């Protein structure tokens, strides 16, 4: 069993126009930058993206936005992206904002075969409009649906050819849950190791969820807010 692909380009080559893509990361932390770049280079159109954020101008998913390849987006926070606002207001991009925990749980549910679940987040707000709301023990809960995708592009720290993955610090974020929810999960990893070298008790994403593994090229990781002890830079 060898899931290693020779390059990010090769790994994303069959993403078709109109595909639904989940893309890991929180802000610019833990984003699969090589896979995003390869997808931009592929030049597909009309993508439906699911990701907590939308990159920032000229970085991460910001590049996909600028390439005009995103038709719709589901996320929880898109605050650092001016182009996105223009596109949404101009009717060129269909944006759905979802509470972050609901987004994470919807993806987890999609991967776990749960078609719908009740959550308290958003009850009594516009998020609940048009959705079933039901009381449990006197409190209102909103029915939310599981989310799945055609492809998940995720970033991990170490992985093996069987697709087992571990993550580093808060770069984990949405990556493992998205890995479970796509028909084809492509993982970009900092280091490829031999099967058996990852502690079996500490594997976060078991290989069953991962279809393709790519060695990252070692780009510089971005820091959005460099805060330091004794005063921010």
């Amino acid at each position, binding site marked *: 069993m060898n899931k290693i692909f020779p390059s990010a380009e090769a790994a994303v080559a069959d993403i078709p126009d109109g595909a639904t893509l989940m893309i890991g990361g*929180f*802000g*610019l*932390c*833990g984003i699969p930058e090589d896979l995003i770049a390869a997808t931009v280079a592929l030049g597909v159109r009309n993508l439906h993206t699911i990701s*907590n954020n939308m990159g920032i101008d000229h970085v991460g998913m910001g590049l996909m936005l600028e390439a005009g390849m995103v038709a719709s987006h589901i*996320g*929880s*926070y*898109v*605050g650092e992206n001016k182009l996105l*606002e223009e596109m*949404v207001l101009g009717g060129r991009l269909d*944006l759905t*904002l979802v*509470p*972050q*925990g*609901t*987004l*994470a*749980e919807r*993806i*987890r549910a999609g991967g776990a075969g749960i078609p719908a679940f009740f*959550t*308290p*987040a*958003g*009850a*009594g*707000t*516009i*998020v609940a409009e048009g959705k079933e709301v039901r009381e449990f023990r006197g409190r209102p809960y909103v029915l939310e649906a599981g989310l799945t995708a055609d492809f998940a592009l995720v970033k991990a720290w170490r992985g093996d050819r069987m697709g087992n993955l571990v*993550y*580093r*610090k*808060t*770069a*984990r*974020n*949405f*990556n*493992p*849950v998205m890995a479970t929810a796509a028909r084809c999960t492509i993982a970009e990893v900092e280091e490829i190791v031999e099967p058996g070298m990852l502690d079996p008790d500490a594997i*976060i994403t078991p290989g069953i969820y991962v279809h393709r593994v790519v060695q990252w090229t070692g780009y510089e*990781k*971005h*820091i*959005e*807010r*460099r*805060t*330091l*002890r004794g005063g*921010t*830079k």
Partner: protein
Amino acid sequence: MDAREIIARRAARELRDGFYVNLGIGIPTAVANYVPEGMEVILQSENGMLGVGPYPLAGSEDADLVNAGKETVTELPGTAYFSSADSFAMIRGGHVNLSILGALQVDREGNLANWMVPGKMLKGMGGAMDLVASARRVIVAMEHATKSGAPKILEACTLPLTGSGVVDTIITELAVMRVTPQGLVLEELGPEATVEQVQRLTGCSLIVTEPVRRMF
């Protein structure tokens, strides 16, 4: 003390030893600077971290280690990392003792609006809706009024809500107010505030039992 320091200092007095706390972006983040000596409080960051440490020393920043405000932070002995799904399972399940966050508006029924101003740049609610719907106790820590002096504490929020009936306590530089079925009770006054001043800058009538004690 400036307004932000008063608010953060006072909010820190709501902490208890052993509390697990989620701090929102802005003034709430500063609450961590005023944890009383000898008290252990563990900070949860909704991007997947329990045990958030201080900002790093120059040169030791790590792009893989940020808080929910995307600021570089550090880890502590006992820190644990987990996925966003696990993080919000923790929040939604009511395991976080206290959530302190900012607001655009709060009203006498404990409704909170802090994510959207119609017609302005859209940003998204991030994790705020999950946090306010689920933490065992929600404290709003914010400046009492807008820069132009307009009330942010209202009879009823006019902005789209983040959560309905979710706020327990409001802490500003002028006052501490508790949400009760009867309305907002003025519990404490800021260092130099008067009842009249607080009421004038508040958009709903406060329940006041004189004398009102001072914050500090």
